[in-house]
């Protein structure tokens, strides 16, 4: 990376770099698996209305046994039915939407917030930096799940509120990483030069600092989606996340858990879906860290 990149060259270079990183990801079996899982889930989320075999909200008459128990997988209902006789496969497919929307939204907010706090504190330092980083320390020591549950209990949980709650809990790690990097970058010559020739603050931050932070933002942003997916599932499992009847993988387990000993598929399939999605983002994020962080090259 050169010291001062003319923007046009940089942009073309960046497109090529993204392609190179994607290619590198596909060459690694674990990351490729992760990317494929994410792609399948994204397709399921976008095309859910056409992919669902049944109406996910319909309490089907033949969805329960004569004794009123949920149906096991097979036949008309490929993954069985839930306690109310609704098709589990359809609810899982629609649940993909919930998970991805919250994953992307909550993590997006957390990334912007965390990177914003980290850059501000690291670049300006002084008392602004001190206050922001002490606040970050404070949030680090907060029992995260308790905080999320209390926040979710204060506001009536809607999809947006759940995403906001998760973002409020998850921005901290990003802030710390970006803060440390910004501080060391701010001392470097190419930033000092920009400052001394009188470039505006926003210009220095946007055109010169941010490009160097992009790797970390991408890596921790990807790993963060996994944390977000898990937190959403946990909140919904506890009944303070996404509210039924909107299906989320966590609240499907919440609704059906009393039956888990006789109808284990009602826990197994949504559970597997959560693990698979979180795993996919972890695998991709881990590989990205390997690829983008040159200090780790060849170590593992």
């Amino acid at each position, binding site marked *: 990376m050169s010291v001062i990149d003319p923007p046009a060259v940089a942009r073309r270079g960046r497109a090529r770099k993204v392609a190179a990183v994607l290619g590198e990801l596909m060459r690694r079996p674990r990351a490729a698996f992760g990317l494929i899982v994410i792609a399948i889930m994204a397709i399921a989320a976008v095309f859910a209305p056409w992919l669902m075999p049944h109406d996910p909200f319909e309490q089907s008459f033949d969805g329960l046994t004569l004794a009123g128990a949920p149906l096991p997988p097979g036949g008309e209902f490929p993954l069985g039915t839930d306690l109310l006789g609704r098709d589990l496969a359809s609810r899982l497919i629609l649940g993909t939407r919930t998970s991805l929307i919250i994953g992307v939204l909550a993590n997006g907010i957390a990334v912007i917030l965390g990177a914003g706090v980290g850059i501000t504190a690291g670049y300006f330092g002084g008392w602004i930096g001190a206050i922001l980083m002490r606040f970050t320390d404070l949030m680090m020591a907060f*029992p995260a799940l308790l905080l999320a*549950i*209390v926040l979710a209990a204060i506001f009536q949980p809607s999809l947006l509120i759940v995403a906001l709650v998760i973002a409020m809990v998850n921005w901290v790690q990003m802030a710390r990483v970006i803060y440390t990097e910004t501080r060391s970058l701010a001392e470097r010559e190419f930033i000092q030069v920009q400052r001394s020739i009188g470039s505006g603050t926003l210009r220095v931050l946007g055109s010169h600092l941010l490009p160097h932070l992009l790797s970390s933002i991408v890596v921790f942003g990807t790993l963060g989606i996994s944390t977000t997916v898990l937190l959403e599932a946990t909140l919904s499992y506890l009944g303070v996340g996404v509210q039924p009847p909107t299906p989320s993988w966590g609240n499907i387990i919440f609704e059906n858990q009393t039956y888990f*000993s006789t109808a284990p598929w009602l826990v197994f399939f949504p559970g597997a879906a959560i693990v698979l999605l979180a795993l996919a983002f972890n695998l991709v994020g881990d590989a990205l860290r390997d690829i983008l962080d040159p200090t780790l090259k060849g170590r593992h």
Partner: protein
Amino acid sequence: MRGYIIRRLFESALILLGITLVTFILLYLVPADPARQIAGRSATAETVQNIRDQLGLNDPFFVQYARYLGNLFQGDMGRSYLQRAEVSELIAARLPASLMLMVAAIVTELIMGLTIGVVAALRRNKFADHSLMIFSFVSISAPQFVIGILLLYVFAVQLGWFPIGGYGTPAHFVLPAVTLGFLGAGWYSRMMRSSMIDVLAQDFVRTARAKGLSKGRIILRHVMPNAILPIIAMIGIDIGLFMSGIVVVESVFGWPGIGQLAWQAIQRVDIPVIMGVTMVSATAIVMGNLLADLVAPLIDPRIKTK
């Protein structure tokens, strides 16, 4: 070193003070009216008003906060709104169960994580390494309630080896401890693996090999002790994971600890209890981090304590 410890203690106290403020603000914003809940549904408006006065809920925010802090400094966390007991008594009654569960979880995660990490490092880039690392990726990607329910289904319902829930005998510990330690096992196995690989590449290992020591002896006496040290320093940081984990794990297994207490209190908006558990958890997390920071320079003198 002493200056460092004093500074870190001071910082920790400030963080805890900040947490009391943030928690108090959050709970102040909860729309539910505690007085109405205590009084019950059939109470008159006057009764509710009296209770509000008694609890001091009509006072301005900062008066309430100052009173809370004043009491807290005297070790008084207030009374539960809904159970006839002091918050400190409720927590004290529940804390041993949670602490024992955490100790069991630490043992579990260390045994699982270190074993996996060592085996993976020794079989680096071989089949065993790849499968173990995939396992560790799965374990950091699995929510605790899913692990807990699956373990219950397989080992309690189907095989009947362990009780379905509850507390009391050593058998009760196994499934909750494994559930709580599963996540940490994933992290530890990855850290142990890379720590082992680092140590294996160092000169003293080559020297030991050149001296003709057996491979087993080199691994056990020279590599593992050095590889484990940086990992031991991380245990303090686990407390944060556990403090979130016990809310879920205790609710899945019906474990009578502070996680369950917190969860019940949140559902019934028993604010003094929520405050109390949050403060106890935050204190534990801060102490854990402090411990990790203090232990790290002892283990690795290269870490500066400036």
